[in-house]
């Protein structure tokens, strides 16, 4: 596949390897990665449950993901497709999570804002990797060498559980933030914004407004 440069990266990356990443680079991961989203964050941070892994020595890669997977009767696992979930919803937990776990790679869908990157990604030496598509679930599933463990599935259900997966050239992922705190999606938004006025020409605002289109709740919406 031609296109952007392709980089192999460890899930316990060196500071130098992270510093070398550029917005839009395509990355494939090797090593252990764990899934953690709102269920895991609340259990670890709010309920102060002991995290059942050595972090970040075992893994510095947090995947915002619920895999399509099952636990077999003999305790083994089958993981089919793997797709990320939208990360912006987890911003409230991530600063504390990064401080607690030393996560360097946050992997998910859609990225965060450059404000988030500058506030707590850059100070922690961390970057954001976005999945591609979205929905390259089968490609990413092939990159799962094996499922090492699943934690807290009884408490949180399969979708919110903490899955620990061994990645073997798992990807592609796209580098969506860098150590300047710049955001790939905001860069693209800015380019697209130049065209917006032209596209909207000939349309007109709705006759009846909605709150949100006026910030003053004492306004009428007509």
């Amino acid at each position: 596949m031609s296109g952007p440069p392709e980089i192999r990266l460890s899930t316990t990356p060196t500071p130098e390897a992270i510093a070398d990443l550029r917005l839009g680079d395509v990355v494939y991961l090797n090593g252990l990665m764990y899934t953690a989203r709102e269920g895991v964050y609340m259990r670890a941070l709010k309920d102060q449950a002991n995290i059942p892994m050595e972090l970040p020595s075992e893994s510095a890669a947090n995947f915002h993901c619920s895999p399509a997977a099952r636990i077999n009767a003999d305790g083994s696992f089958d993981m089919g497709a793997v797709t990320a979930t939208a990360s912006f919803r987890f911003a409230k937990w991530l600063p504390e999570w990064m401080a607690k776990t030393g996560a360097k790679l946050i992997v998910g869908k859609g990225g965060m804002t450059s404000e988030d990157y500058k506030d707590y990604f850059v100070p922690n030496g961390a970057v954001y990797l976005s999945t591609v598509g979205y929905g390259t679930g089968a490609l990413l599933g092939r990159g799962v060498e094996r499922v090492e463990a699943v934690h807290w599935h009884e408490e949180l259900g399969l979708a919110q559980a903490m899955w620990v997966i061994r990645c073997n050239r798992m990807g592609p992922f796209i580098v969506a933030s860098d150590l300047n705190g710049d955001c790939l999606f905001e860069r693209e938004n800015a380019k697209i914004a130049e065209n917006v006025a032209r596209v909207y020409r000939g349309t007109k605002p709705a006759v009846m407004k909605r709150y949100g289109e006026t910030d003053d709740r004492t306004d009428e919406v007509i």
Partner: protein
Amino acid sequence: MIPIQLIQETAEALMDKAAIEIPQDYLDGLRAAADTEDGELSSFVLKAMLENYEVAKEDRRAMCGDTGVPRWFVKLGNETQVEGGMVALEAALRQATANSTSGVPLRPNRVHPLWRTDHNNNVGIGAPEIEYGFEPAPEGEWVDLITVHKGGLFGTDYRMLFPSDGIPGIKRFYLDSLMAFGKRGLACQPAIIGIGLGGSKDICMTLGKRASTLRVVGSRNSDPRIADLEDEFKELGNSIGMGAMGFVGKNMVIDCNIEVGYCHTGGMPMSVHAFCLSSRRAVARIHADGRVAYRTDPDWFTDYQRRETIDWPPVREAAE
């Protein structure tokens, strides 16, 4: 009489097909998009998706890890009887959904909205949704089972517009929806965009959802003026300059389908839906003699479904 066991077996096969095999019409549409895409990042994304579909079929693994919210549309011929009745049919579809969730496997996505209870099988209160349609033709006993696994979070919006908003107002809301959910690719575009116009509020949403999920790429509304709007809106969406994942590009809309229903005389409600890069749908027609024919075109919007008249003549006279 349609055998109930055959319904459940077919339903399980459909869950598997929908999750793994991208429908040919969407695949053709995406290939055409990939051929024209010149944004470097957008182009990379489309190529990765095309590779993903191949890998899914080779490995018999779901194409997307997010199963969406699996649901069912059932269409019955006018004379059709189901063994055990319609309650048995609903139980069979629920059982097939649960079995396939662990069988494929699919991600168990369905939880209680407040208590977040998860049965790990995509079944619960009101889940999966089962909706019905009926057809006067062809005669005889047959049932169409249609499963759709549509993404559940982003890409959809509803607004009550009014006649004075007109087409310019419809265009504005359409663009607003694409801009809101297209950025960062939350809508998982390029997508089949479905627009519902008219109906009551709930039916407006239903029409838009069905327009995106139950019509194939390249189909056109039987009203030629609406068909023209579909062409125009497809082009409009693709002229934003936004492509896959919200990167600079020229492919946001694989196709735009519009469905209408009569609404209150004072209003013009509108809904917008996006059926994503994993546009998962699969269809089978089951006959009473045990024949099963699989396809990917739901063929939902027949003349009968769009009828305007009070009745539907059982035998339409030849026009000679």
